[in-house]
């Protein structure tokens, strides 16, 4: 959208600066294997909503591993970085989802009352019994960087048929990732702004990169254009949600699924970056200013509790 004002840019800076206070608590099981006289205190960290847990996993491991000095080399103990995993309310947390997305999806969905504050976010740290069947092992920085880059490429494939990211130098790709790691807003947006431009004589993105998350379901992603040429109008967040939910319901019916998704938007709270944007927001605008650093809009749909 060509009407970019100073206010719009401020929003990207606000989002970049948003943090979550997180309290990491060692699991009871691993607590029992500690070989120092005092039990580990919880570890408190303020983390960027748009960052990923693998970016700080070494810090967590270093903190807790000091309590196991002496038996780190003991094979039977299995206390090592590779076996570290995080859990919230019995749910193993996926490494490749941005921290803010995990928070919005799980704390909103699992609360009995929306007025209860979930801060600091209490996460259990496990150092053993990695849940092989539920979680993919790749907590190291190189893997998460590879994941970030491939997601960015997918977003550009949708927006610009991959032309812009394809034309970028390798050092620009590196700058995006490094500024994300080092929390450098200006350095990030110097490059990211190129990914927000238009190609092919369009005044908008070809398709919007978005994913919709509902608890206990795989995420939904569809092709959706931000502008309706025939009706000459900008599509809104509401239009995108309605299209996605309707399409998903059709697929479920064709597959004879027993449980069909509720496609009434009124049934959900719509959360992006911890806030509920107005449903009439133009989706092109949201894609340019409200996407995560991976250029995707990660949208949580939280079912309203039945009273």
């Amino acid at each position, binding site marked *: 959208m060509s009407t970019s004002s100073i206010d719009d840019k401020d929003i990207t800076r606000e989002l970049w600066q948003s943090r979550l206070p997180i309290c990491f608590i060692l699991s009871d099981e691993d607590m029992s294997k500690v070989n120092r006289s005092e039990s580990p205190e919880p570890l408190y960290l303020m983390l960027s909503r748009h960052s990923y847990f693998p970016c700080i996993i070494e810090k967590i491991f270093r903190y807790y591993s000091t309590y196991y000095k002496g038996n780190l080399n003991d094979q039977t103990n299995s206390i090592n970085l590779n076996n570290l995993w995080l859990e919230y309310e019995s749910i193993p947390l996926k490494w490749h989802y941005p921290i803010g997305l995990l928070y919005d999806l799980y704390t909103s969905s699992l609360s009995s009352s929306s007025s209860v504050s979930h801060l600091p976010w209490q996460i259990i740290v496990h150092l053993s019994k990695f849940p092989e069947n539920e979680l993919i092992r790749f907590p190291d920085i190189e893997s998460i960087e590879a994941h970030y880059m491939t997601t960015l490429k*997918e977003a550009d494939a949708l927006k610009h048929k991959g032309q812009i990211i394809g034309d970028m130098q390798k050092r620009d790709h590196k700058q995006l990732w490094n500024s994300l790691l080092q929390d450098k807003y200006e350095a990030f947006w110097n490059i990211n702004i190129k990914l927000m431009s238009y190609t092919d004589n369009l005044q908008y993105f070809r398709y919007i990169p978005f994913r919709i998350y509902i608890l206990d379901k795989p995420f939904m992603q569809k092709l959706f254009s931000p502008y309706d040429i025939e009706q000459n109008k900008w599509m809104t967040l509401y239009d995108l949600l309605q299209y996605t939910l309707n399409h998903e319901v059709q697929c479920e019916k064709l597959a004879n699924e027993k449980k069909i998704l509720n496609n009434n938007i009124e049934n959900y709270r719509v959360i992006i970056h911890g806030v509920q944007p107005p449903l009439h927001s133009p989706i092109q605008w949201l894609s340019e200013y409200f996407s995560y650093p991976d250029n995707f809009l990660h949208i949580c749909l939280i079912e309203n509790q039945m009273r």
Partner: protein
Amino acid sequence: MSTVEDDGDTNSLRFGPSNDSEGGSKVVFLLKAAGGAPILKKKKWALPRTKTIGHIVEFLKKYMHLDTQQQQQLFLYVNQAFSPALDTTIGSVNDCFSSEGTLVLHYALTEAWG
């Protein structure tokens, strides 16, 4: 993947054109070798929409007898450009990236387009 059927099997076509934008029951996709990976005799596959990329990767590793001890990896690519996350459903990949009714996935043993 016990649900994968050969293109000669009528089951995969029972629910109508699978790559129809209104969402047929099964997604049909072509697997193409890249980066020197072994070529599969069977190139056309069909899976329910809800199966994930991770599921396909695990199946192919066994099907191709990849060495799990050596931790041999398999990479799947879309548009010869990016690797969808392992928890992405094949239905989503199909909805977004099939071309003229066909979804093509490239597989490699090394990072061909990393």
